[in-house]
């Protein structure tokens, strides 16, 4: 009986994963603004692939050889998704693909992503004298 419940769980995880992967790609194709397109495939990379990897873990458990190393891929994707999203957002901002320019920052002089190279790297005095 518990085997039936496990089968249903595997099937549900597979269907949810496939649906969210599809939703992410449809959003990537259909949305208008570049930043909105940046937001769409995060569903595919977290819930979509996460559910499919969870289905793989459950399937390995059901077939009698349990293995949990798919959780490694989930952890890796969850750690690297914000970093790559940050880089792509930075490309959108700097190449002027954003819909509106950034508003003026409240307290600082300028946004950190638009700071010049000399300002965002505090230089050591002897290195500066060398250069």
């Amino acid at each position: 009986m518990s085997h039936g419940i496990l089968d249903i769980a595997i099937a549900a995880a597979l269907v949810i994963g496939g649906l969210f992967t599809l939703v992410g790609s449809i959003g990537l194709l259909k949305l208008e603004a570049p930043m909105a397109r940046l937001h769409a495939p995060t569903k595919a990379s977290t819930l979509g692939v996460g559910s499919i990897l969870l289905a793989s873990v459950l399937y390995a458990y059901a077939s009698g050889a349990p293995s949990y190393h798919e959780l490694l891929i989930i952890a890796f994707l969850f750690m690297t998704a914000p970093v790559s999203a940050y880089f792509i957002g930075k490309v959108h901002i700097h190449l002027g693909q954003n819909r509106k320019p950034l508003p003026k920052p409240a307290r600082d002089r300028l946004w950190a992503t638009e700071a010049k190279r000399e300002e965002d790297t505090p230089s050591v005095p002897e290195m500066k004298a060398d250069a």
Partner: protein
Amino acid sequence: MIVTYALIFAFAAVSLSLLLTMIRLVKGPRSGDRILALDTLSINAVALIILVGIAGATQIYFEAAIIIAMLGFVSTVAVARFVLRGDIIE
């Protein structure tokens, strides 16, 4: 039996999403959209390889999946940095 049908559905959904991402990769107006489409393409490829592993009931596709996940992240960062700075390692 229900797992087989769900597996067929997941294969169809992931393959269709790979196709849609490919359309965005070809169409994408500027380079940011193309980088995003490449990142999504590698993530969908990870999902497809894991599905192949479930269908074949083997564990040997896990290494391919994790290598594609790592290379996808590194290549996304490298291409974004190349577009931003004109150089990858300064």
